[in-house]
């Protein structure tokens, strides 16, 4: 019989467990136990129990209670396991070089695209944000209703600034009237430059928190002073101190340099403002200073600290309606505040309501970025799952030796993270390399934000997102294999539906690609369509010069004679508007039989007699201005749109009565020309009239002689202009180049779309290439048997390519209506737009099909040409 088993005091044991360091508790308990049993034999149970308690109490000392911080044992769990995962992952990458290349390369390209787009979007969103008072600044805009159509403009009447200050002074911290930015000739001694700048009220310096390098912000308060940007000051004065020096504006105003400010940041809408001149200069020279109908200036405000943007906006609504002339009330002018945060991204208005603007491109490119990245992730998923058979045994063995599913999932995740991190490193390199080139296309000054913590946080998030996106499906799929089946080797069957998800993903890829192809083609078609639009005049060899000084007008005949004699030009004219814009739009024309309810604003272009010959406009009816008819000084030429809106069948000879701005004069229509595209090439031509200018024009337009080379003609012209107009630099512009600027935004979108589309297609094809090579490899034996039985190369090629073609056809079927819908919406933005012809869709589909076949055929033909002896012998 066994001696009764005595138990040491439980309370003491519990105490031990409560206080002792966990890594020692077992050892101590064992010691206590052993001594307890020994002592029962030697001194009896009672004494043993007593000693036990004493021992436990004696163990309650700090040196034994201290927790172990550094572990003596190596921890074999995580680090080792992950090291093993990474080792296996690395071996797999090295073993399958093609797949690794496709995976990492494709992901890197996708990430590069996403990164470039991310930087671009970041830059777009940060425009104007560098201004301290970003949230409080707004521009006053006005809506006017004309024939039931609400049009929005930023031009305001001269008295608006003072009216805002007196009536709503408490709502605004600053109210600033501005001329808007335009080019002006600045000269210091013999140095002359044409620079864009602003005539503006002095509070602007505080509003935009100008960083003064020299002088003070208050310098602009002196009406005879000017503030220069750093770059302009440098151009004129080099390293000398510019303060107090005299700068001449347009050869008639001398201003003291009162300060130099740091150039406005490139991603702000004031970036082209290179000087600030006193607003009073332009205000004093303005006729109709008090005319509320003279919409000429811009108004910027900063709200008072406690004022609410929307409330103030609603308050000032009727300011013009109430103060302006009674007969102008028909236009229902409504003023409102357009906050700075919307200036750049939401500058489009439709019927007086903000309808976005560039923000749409920001969205568009963000979506494209996400999709391109998604395409690369799909490649990763497809290739991983397609090759799952090769990994199946590994999964089986791992499971058999005790891996649980969560461990396998983390294994495959660590694999995908390895690939993603490699791809990310590559993508960082690619992005850095391609950034200058990308900047050129996008017209930006992007830099890698190496020092920004946001950049790194975003990168980390980006790696995690991509890793999860790409790794989740393979991880879940591969880890779900049943060990018995896969190890037996017979159980693993790629059934009919096993490949279904893969096929769906390929369809998604090609849907995106085909949509992008169609989109790119249509963007380009639209640009081309607008570029090929009949201009109504001849752009070839036309140059245009701004003539702010009176010299050209005063010596016009002499200059024209001399230039014509020297053979440099064919013809020369003056004009109030450039050829690429209409400066004067007047609402108050009247004519016989005018519909009283018609509110027609007509463009009015004041020109000299030889304008028509210079630009080469084309007559539908009537004749050009001629010096031989003295009555032509009140002659008028209509464009087709004007003739149409006036409702004349035979306009020649009709009398048009102008409004106050043109001194209520009456004009005789002498001719009708074909519409000339002077404004947006996407909009219908504005109904316009052309009349003889009796004063100085703003521009000189010259038709260079076609017989001379442009360089020759220009140098001769320059000499003559220098002689008669010494105050102004000879800054000419080619009209066709000025016209091309109007396509810049769309061309940029087109180029970017083309770039991203090509990359998207590249990535999709890489994936397809990988899949095809896998399929071919998998079916090596089948192909061998078929060849032995007499299958031709062509029939085998068809067999292998058929599946992929089928997928692309489905993708095309999905992409077509999608693209039709999206691009139909986009084209609606343009009044003058191309059609969504069926052939664009057909061509895109065919293109995608050809690309697919080329990609797949390389693999399938390689497989079919293989010697069956080899493929059947290998085991």
């Amino acid at each position, binding site marked *: 019989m066994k001696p009764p088993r005595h138990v040491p005091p439980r309370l003491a044991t519990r105490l031990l467990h409560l206080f002792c360091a966990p890594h020692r508790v*077992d*050892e*101590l308990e*064992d*010691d*206590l*136990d*052993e*001594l307890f049993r*020994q002592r029962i034999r030697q001194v009896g149970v009672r004494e043993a129990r007593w*000693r036990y308690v*004493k*021992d436990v*109490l*004696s*163990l*309650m*000392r700090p*040196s*034994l209670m201290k927790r172990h911080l550094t572990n003596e044992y190596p921890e074999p769990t995580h680090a080792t396991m992950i090291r093993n995962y990474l080792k296996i992952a690395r071996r797999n990458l090295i073993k399958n070089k093609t797949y690794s290349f496709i995976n990492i390369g494709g992901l890197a390209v996708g990430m590069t695209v996403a990164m470039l787009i991310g930087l671009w979007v970041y830059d777009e969103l940060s425009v104007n944000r560098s201004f301290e008072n970003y949230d409080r600044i707004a521009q006053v805009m006005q809506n006017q209703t004309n024939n039931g159509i609400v049009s929005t403009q930023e031009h305001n009447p001269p008295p608006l600034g003072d009216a805002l200050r007196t009536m709503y002074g408490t709502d605004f911290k600053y109210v600033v009237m501005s001329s808007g930015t335009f080019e002006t000739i600045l000269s210091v001694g013999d140095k002359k430059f044409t620079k864009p700048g602003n005539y503006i009220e002095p509070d602007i310096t505080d509003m935009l928190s100008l960083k003064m390098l020299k002088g003070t912000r208050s310098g602009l308060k002196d009406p005879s002073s000017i503030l220069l940007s750093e770059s302009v000051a440098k151009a004129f004065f080099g390293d000398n101190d510019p303060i107090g020096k005299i700068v001449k504006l347009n050869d008639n105003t001398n201003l003291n340099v009162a300060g130099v400010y740091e150039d406005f940041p490139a991603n702000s809408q004031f970036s082209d403002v290179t000087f600030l001149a006193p607003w009073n200069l332009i205000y004093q020279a303005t006729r109709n200073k008090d005319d509320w109908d003279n919409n000429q200036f811009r108004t910027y405000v900063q709200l008072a600290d406690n004022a609410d943007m929307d409330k103030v906006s609603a308050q000032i609504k009727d300011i013009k309606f109430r103060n302006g002339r009674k007969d102008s009330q028909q236009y229902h002018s409504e003023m409102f505040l357009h906050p700075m945060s919307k200036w750049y991204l939401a500058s489009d208005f439709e019927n007086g309501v903000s309808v976005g603007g560039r923000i749409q491109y920001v969205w568009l490119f963000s979506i494209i970025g996400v999709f391109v990245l998604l395409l690369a992730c799909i490649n990763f998923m497809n290739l991983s799952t397609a090759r799952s058979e090769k990994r199946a045994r590994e999964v089986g063995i791992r499971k058999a030796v005790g891996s649980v599913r969560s461990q396998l999932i983390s294994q495959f995740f660590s694999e995908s993270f390895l690939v993603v991190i490699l791809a990310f490193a590559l993508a960082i390199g690619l992005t850095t390399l391609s950034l200058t080139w990308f900047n050129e296309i996008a017209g930006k000054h992007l830099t890698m934000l190496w020092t920004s913590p946001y950049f790194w946080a975003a990168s980390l998030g980006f790696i995690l997102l991509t890793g999860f996106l790409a790794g989740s499906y393979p991880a879940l799929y591969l880890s779900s294999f049943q060990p018995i089946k896969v190890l037996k080797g017979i159980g693993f069957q790629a059934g009919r539906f096993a490949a279904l998800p893969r096929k769906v993903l390929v369809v998604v890829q090609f849907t995106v690609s085909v949509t992008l192809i169609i989109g790119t083609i249509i963007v380009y078609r639209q640009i081309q369509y607008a570029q090929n639009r009949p201009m109504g005049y001849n752009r070839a060899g036309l140059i245009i010069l701004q003539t702010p000084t009176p010299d050209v007008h005063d010596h016009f005949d002499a200059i024209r004679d001399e230039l014509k004699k020297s053979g440099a030009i064919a013809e020369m004219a003056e004009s109030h508007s450039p050829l690429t814009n209409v400066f004067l739009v007047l609402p108050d024309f009247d004519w016989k039989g005018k519909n009283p309810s018609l509110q027609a604003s007509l463009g009015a272009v004041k020109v000299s007699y030889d304008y028509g010959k210079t630009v080469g406009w084309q007559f539908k009816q009537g004749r050009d201005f001629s010096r031989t008819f003295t009555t032509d000084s009140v002659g008028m030429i209509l464009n087709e749109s004007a003739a149409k809106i006036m409702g004349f069948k035979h306009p020649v000879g009709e009398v048009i009565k102008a409004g106050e701005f043109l001194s209520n004069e009456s004009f005789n229509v002498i001719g009708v020309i074909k519409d000339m595209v002077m404004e947006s090439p996407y909009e219908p031509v504005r109904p316009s009239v052309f009349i003889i200018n009796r004063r100085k024009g703003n521009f000189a337009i010259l038709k260079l002689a076609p017989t001379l080379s442009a360089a020759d003609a220009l140098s001769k012209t320059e000499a003559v202009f220098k002689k008669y107009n010494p105050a102004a630099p000879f800054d000419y512009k080619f009209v066709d180049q000025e016209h091309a600027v109007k396509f810049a935004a769309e061309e940029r979108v087109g180029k970017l779309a083309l770039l991203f589309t090509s990359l998207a297609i590249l990535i999709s094809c890489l994936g397809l290439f990988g899949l095809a090579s896998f399929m071919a490899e998998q079916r090596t034996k089948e192909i061998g048997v078929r060849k032995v039985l007499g299958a031709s190369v062509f029939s085998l090629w068809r067999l292998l390519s058929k599946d992929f073609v089928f997928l692309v056809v489905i993708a095309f079927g999905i992409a077509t209506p999608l693209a039709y819908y999206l691009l139909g919406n986009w084209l609606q933005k343009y009044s003058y737009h191309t059609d969504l012809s069926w052939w664009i869709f057909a061509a895109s589909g065919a293109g995608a099909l050809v690309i697919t076949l080329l990609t797949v055929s390389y693999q399938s033909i390689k497989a079919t040409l293989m010697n069956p002896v080899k493929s059947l012998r290998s085991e």
Partner: protein
Amino acid sequence: MKGTYLGEFEEVVLLAVAIRSGDAYGATVVTEIEQQMNRSVNLGAVHSALNRLGEKGLVTSELGGMTAERGGRSKRLYSVTAAGRRALQEIRQVRNQMWESIPTTVWT
């Protein structure tokens, strides 16, 4: 020189570890000291002394073999290091020296 100073109890524990070398752990050290010195010793005092000796580098410990007695759990076995041995020898030498320095007349 705190590092090398060996307290009286530490010396006893170190000696016990040396006596029980190969089988020296908390409980055996306690038993050994109790038997040799005929006085009761607290387990906590022994463990804390072993700790201190370990920190001074005079004993090392390693996980020993499992015994059925201890429910299949391995135990921490202590052994005297070379430095520990030197420390013991030094003490002994100092004692011997001191014994020999006692004038013989004292005892008579």
